[in-house]
């Protein structure tokens, strides 16, 4: 299935792009998607404990399962305001 992934802040610098469309097996989780990103950009792995994920613009846990067409973002600590 196809997942749209968005990168922000520090993570965008690391992944060197704003967004990517990645192919994952059915029943993959957010965690699986993160590991796929880390496989492509090894430095990415070091951010695992300091980012959160959203799925379709809602914060989700790492074990959340994905569906085809989902929009997932990896979000570093927010600093608006």
């Amino acid at each position, binding site marked *: 299935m196809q997942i749209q992934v968005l990168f922000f802040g520090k993570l965008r610098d690391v992944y060197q792009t704003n967004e990517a469309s990645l192919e994952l097996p059915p029943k993959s989780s957010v965690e699986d998607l993160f590991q796929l990103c880390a496989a492509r950009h090894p430095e990415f792995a070091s951010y695992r404990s300091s980012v959160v994920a*959203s799925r379709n613009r809602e*914060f989700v846990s790492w074990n959340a399962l*994905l569906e085809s067409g989902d929009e997932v973002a990896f979000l570093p600590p*927010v600093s608006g305001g």
Partner: protein
Amino acid sequence: MAPTPNPDLVLLVREPISFEALVRHVRQPHDGAVVTFDGCVRNHSLGRATLYLEYEAYESMALEKMREIAASLHTLFAIDSVAVAHRLGRLEIGETSVFIAVSAPHRKAAFEAARHAIDTLKKTVPIWKKEFFEDGAVWADGELPPVPAATPAPKPAS
């Protein structure tokens, strides 16, 4: 006498925030108090002189989260209406990055709601600040938004 609350106003903007428009938006004849919070770009950060800032957002999600904050204020506090604007892009020293206006019949609710709004925005709205100094730029330290402990699996595709 029959208060019809204004719809809340939630904005991400790339030009200077118009305080007057936001205050006008929330202010109605049955209100006794309007509290505003104006977050400004300081000329230093952790002892270093700041040159300017850049803000970026996950815009669609940030707007959703800001709308959720505005809605939650109505359930938590006896307020009338809320306007929240956050600026994106490059900001100079002294410019306003975020402006919140809350109107209420009485001042206690207006103060508490405005405070709650900015505290929650800083913890949960996906916006990031990059600080530019003489000798480089860094993404500001921020807060990791709270995330649900476990997420129910989506319904299997039928």
